[in-house]
């Protein structure tokens, strides 16, 4: 039950906050929202053997 509440409180509410103020594509200019732009490395093949700095890291938590 706690986790269902957390999903609504964090994910659903957060998503609504982001959407309520208009999408980033529209904010960037009239042409930017016409279609989604691919991510900068969207074509990069997954590399299971990537070094840490290539695969990124995480933010330590509690």
């Amino acid at each position, binding site marked *: 039950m706690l986790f269902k509440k957390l999903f609504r409180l964090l994910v659903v509410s957060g*998503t609504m906050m*982001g959407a309520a103020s208009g999408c980033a594509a529209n904010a960037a200019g009239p042409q930017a929202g016409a279609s*989604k*732009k691919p991510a900068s*490395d969207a074509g990069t093949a997954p590399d299971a053997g990537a070094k*840490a700095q*290539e695969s990124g890291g*995480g*933010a330590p938590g509690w």
Partner: protein
Amino acid sequence: MIERLAAEAWAFRARVEREAAARFSRLAEEIAAFDPESPVPAMLRRAADDEHRHEALCAELAGRGLPSDASDGRIAPPSLGPREAALYEMVAACCITETESVATVASLLAEDAVPRVREVLHEIARDEVVHAQMGWAHLAREAAAIEVGFLSRFIPSMLAGAAGDQLFADGAPELESAELLRHGVLPLSRKREIFTQTLREVIFPGLEQFGISTAPARDWHAARMADPATASAYSST
């Protein structure tokens, strides 16, 4: 012994809070540069102030001065462009780490902690909710503008960094002491359960609603649960 373990946990949290403050300040500027109408940069600036306050509270409970060894390490892979790197960090720091923190603090508040610890947990809990929400808010905005599916293969690294080396490892018996709860620290196995349940019921469904496959992350998690001895493998690759 229990008091010493609790003090170490709060000292670690003080460093985490300081690092988060630096990251949020930096991300506020980076996101404002490509999405000036976003509400997220203002949220990030407030969150940075919150984290400085949390740092002092955690240091107080650790019985130590403020940490001096935390840094604002960039965690996104250098192969990503600036916009994708900012998204990577928001997902890692907020959608994953802050979301896990809310679940941890909520679980601790359900226990019988000593009064000052309880006060601190209450104050931190209120702020951490907003810190998690700003990650989901940013992801929602970016999902409308760019392809965000590329994040899928990076989620295991984000999880490894959030969990640290110890979460899936066998811990010393004192790390399982229920007495830790009175000092605002979860016993290790309980911490692992909450981390796992938050992944399965909050974070994974949240990422999937934006079309980010969680298959690599689920494989990563299943491997950790099946073989705790591999606990440090991901964080060192």
